[in-house]
């Protein structure tokens, strides 16, 4: 299976801080890949670099064979992203948000209409298509964002904490949608999450980042064997330590940046 994301020696340095330190890993086409790590580990920074929102200090990235720093538009057209905080327009309806996205991503009008209908029905929001998004619950907004992420047939869908703050029913639905799209359309799913059991259940492969370095990667089974533990959560704790990450002066710079992104 070929690689759809290739990361080699990727580094990101801020003034005093090295947020991402020479990491190398690949994501295979069509797989569900979980990117895990404690707070301040460098996850957010890595994703920003993958999604053209930040430039690497050194190293290389290939998204769908494009270099996001040099071929920005082609790279962006290859992926969709669902941010942790909603990035919808509250003053527009669900349908309008979808349509807008379609226009931004140059989806042809006929395809756009059919696709919007297909996706909104899929996430069970078709009957709310003309309602303003500001009236939607958190779960509904997340479902809409996922539908929107798939609109332009992306090769990869990035998801930052896709199920955080959602009730179990919605969470279940979201994984059903994601797995279905992954199976039927071959969309590679790249997610970050703190919910270890979920990551364990759905992902094909996992990478764990800590202090800017990849500390482990492989399938869930491999990680459990490697750390001699029975659950992904225990494996994770064993690899990253049980100490709560204190906000040292170093980490504050990074969390501040992460917080800014979360807005």
């Amino acid at each position: 299976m070929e690689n759809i994301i290739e990361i080699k020696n990727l580094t990101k340095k801020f003034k005093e801080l090295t947020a991402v330190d020479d990491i190398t890993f690949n994501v295979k086409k069509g797989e569900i890949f979980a990117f895990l790590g404690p707070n301040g580990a460098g996850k957010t920074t890595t994703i920003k670099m993958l999604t053209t929102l930040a430039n690497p200090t050194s190293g290389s990235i290939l998204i769908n064979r494009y270099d996001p720093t040099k071929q920005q538009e082609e790279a962006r057209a290859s992926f969709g992203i669902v941010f942790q905080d909603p990035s919808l327009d509250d003053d527009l309806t669900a349908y309008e948000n979808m349509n807008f996205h379609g226009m931004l991503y140059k989806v042809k009008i006929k395809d756009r209409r059919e696709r919007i209908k297909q996706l909104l029905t899929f996430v069970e929001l078709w009957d709310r298509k003309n309602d303003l998004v500001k009236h939607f619950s958190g779960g509904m907004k997340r479902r809409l964002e996922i539908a929107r992420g798939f609109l332009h047939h992306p090769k990869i869908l990035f998801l930052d904490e896709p199920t955080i703050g959602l009730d179990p029913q919605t969470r279940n639905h979201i994984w059903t949608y994601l797995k279905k799209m992954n199976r039927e359309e071959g969309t590679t799913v790249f997610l970050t999450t703190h919910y270890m059991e979920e990551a364990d259940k759905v992902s094909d492969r996992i990478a764990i980042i800590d202090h800017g370095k990849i500390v482990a990667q492989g399938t869930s089974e491999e990680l459990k064997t490697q750390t001699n533990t029975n659950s992904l959560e225990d494996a994770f704790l064993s690899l990253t330590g049980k100490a709560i990450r204190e906000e040292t002066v170093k980490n504050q710079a990074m969390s501040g940046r992460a917080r800014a992104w979360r807005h």
Partner: protein
Amino acid sequence: MWLREVKKYFRSKSRIIGSLGQPILFLVALGFGLGPVFQKAGQGNYIQFLVPGIISMSILFLAIFSGISVIWDRQFGFLKETLVAPVPRWQIMLGRTLGGATVAILQGFIVFAIAFLAGFRLENFAVLPITFVFMALIALAFTALGTAIASVLEDMHGFQLIMNFLVMPIFFLSGALFPLTNLPKALNIIVRLDPLSYGVDGIRATLGGISQFGLMTDFWVLSVATAILIGIGSYLFSKIQV
């Protein structure tokens, strides 16, 4: 220019009525209040004089506000959606600016229509296209300026400062409310540096009044200013780091 239509669309859902309030208030209060004083000073009908200023005022404020609302987008996350899309930044900025400007111009026309109710009279309706050009330039210039400012500010705190120290002076020192003759030297300089002065003067000239600077001068200065502001706005917008 898809973006423009969307922006235009959702702006009209919210605050058109609200922002009509201020211009109308000014028009009525100042127009009828200062009218007699103006007349006495030998300057003629104040309403005729004031209306171009009021039109410009409504365009100015709405345009700046449209531009600045990039900050809202940033805070509410919508901006990220546009930044991650495979579209060049300048196109996004341009679409946004056109959308904001369109709404501002629409507003200008509404105020214009209301002015007739207050006693404004127009001899020659054929000048309207030229008036439109000036209104459009003002709208574009200040939407771009709003966007430029918003690209640099990170949250709404600076907004108050901007309103009081930038927008108000631009408005008050543009000849919208009073004639620009016999001003103290310092004030005169500021007036000449204010792009809005040329816009107001242009509109006033076309609507049958006196022109301070000359119609052609107004047009050229305003156009150049608009082009520069759009350039600056585009540049700053493209530099936004989320």
